[in-house]
């Protein structure tokens, strides 16, 4: 899932200076699962905003709504009527949802209520970790299904570097060395000899480096 973190109430309030009505718009997908921007967080943020505005002596109408997906025009259409009653939107969706909402409602200022962090998984309740950077050209087949681009701080394709100590990365004792994980995994699979294959120079044009990415599936287009 896409993992996001809630922005501080202070930052959100600062974004809303002078606003007289605001819709807090949640998303029922990834941000709900990682508890940053679902219905529950929408309620919490809306209450907190009302408190702050009251303390500031401001009369601000704070609305609440959570839709199925903010990255889908169909669901964004569901709030069209509601939008007319609000001057601005605080979106608790990921960066995709925030932008897509703004694209759909060009005259409405849309502010981010979360920091979108990474594509990751829940290690345990309350702990999420990054697992994919969407480089557009997956190499997990040769790295024992551990991604060095995501999990090595130097994204080395032929690691580990000399800073790997006791299975930990040189940047922190709290970070696992991706290449230690790859080697352990290759060993468990009985494929350690594959470690000696040189990984070729990567074509990063499918990554962010190649510019904004788009996928067109002709077979799905009507």
């Amino acid at each position, binding site marked *: 899932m896409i993992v996001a973190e809630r922005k501080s109430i202070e930052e959100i309030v600062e974004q809303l200076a002078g606003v007289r009505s605001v819709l807090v718009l949640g998303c029922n997908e990834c941000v709900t699962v990682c508890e940053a921007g679902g219905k529950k967080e929408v309620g919490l943020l809306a209450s907190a905003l009302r408190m702050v505005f009251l303390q500031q002596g401001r009369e601000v109408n704070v609305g609440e709504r959570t839709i199925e997906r903010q990255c889908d025009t169909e669901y964004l259409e569901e709030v069209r009527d509601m939008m007319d009653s609000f001057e601005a939107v605080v979106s608790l969706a990921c960066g995709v949802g925030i932008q897509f909402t703004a694209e759909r409602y060009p005259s409405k200022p849309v502010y981010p209520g979360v920091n979108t962090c990474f594509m990751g998984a829940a290690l345990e309740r309350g702990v999420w970790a990054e697992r994919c950077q969407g480089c557009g050209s997956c190499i997990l087949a040769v790295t024992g299904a551990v991604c060095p681009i995501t999990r090595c*701080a*130097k*994204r*080395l*394709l*032929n*690691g*580990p*570097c*000399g*800073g*790997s*100590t*006791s*299975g930990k990365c*040189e*940047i922190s004792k709290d970070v696992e*060395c991706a290449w*230690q994980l790859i*080697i352990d995994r290759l060993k468990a699979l009985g494929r350690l000899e594959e*470690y*000696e294959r*040189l*990984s*070729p*120079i990567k074509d*990063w044009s499918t990554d962010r480096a190649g510019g904004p990415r788009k996928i067109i599936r002709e077979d799905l287009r009507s």
Partner: protein
Amino acid sequence: MSPKTPSKLEKILRAGHLAVTSECGPPRGSDPSHIVHKAELIKNHVDAINITDNQTSVCRLCSLAACIRLKLMGLEPVLQMVVRDRNRIALQSDILGAASFDIHNLLCLSGDHQRFGDNAQGQNVFDLDSMQLLQTVRRMRDEGKFLGGDPIQRPPAMFVGAAANPFADPFEIRVPRLAKKVAAGAEFIQTQCIYNLDKFEKWMTLVRDRGLHEKVFILAGVTPFKSAGMARYMKTKVPGMDVPDEVVKRMAGTPKDKQAEEGLAICVESIQRLKEVKGVAGFHIMAIEWEERVPEIVERGGLYPRPAV
């Protein structure tokens, strides 16, 4: 085998001499006298001088410019290049720039992560890794081609090296990793500072078992301790460093005013022992901000005078 490049370091190694290299870190400013002074201190006692490339990610005068200074002094630089700060365009371009000044030695490195330095909030690049940089420079030299495939006018004539850390984890892949670097094109290796000689010898045994010592020149890295504090720091704070307890104890057990001498003694003893290890082709003496003692280490290590080639 006859030398493939005009590198003096390569000539010395191929002639079967134990080579001696040292390193200088460029200054944190633009005054060239700093690097000239350091080089003057060691020039008669070493075959080549490495110039570090923003080591520990602390911003300094660039390695290439400092190498050019050494060339202007008639000395033999080893250009260190990390892949942290430059993409493949900049790396190839800097290789050509270095070659235009007839810099004949290149050491290909990953580079410390930027969080250790004074620009921890910066981006890193890592477009290539150190092995891919080795492949790149070998392709430029041997095939006369850029990575993109176009021909290079006057390809770079560089003797190509890499680092090896026999002490990083996991130990079992440390020799396979060296084999990978050799396969990628490394012709010489400068190792991490060696304090755990037993472990280094074990690594060298595995290196010899695979015949790698016949495919690559291995220069054993040594760094003298200036104090017990430095020994403790190296042991606990520097990633991938292996300083045995008894070495730290030996330094700590020496009166403060004698610790520098003890550090030098340990360094010289290490060189003497390592000279006997089959497959060690020379020494890389990294006297961190202590260049003035390098001549003494070389002499006491029995590595002086340096051969003329």
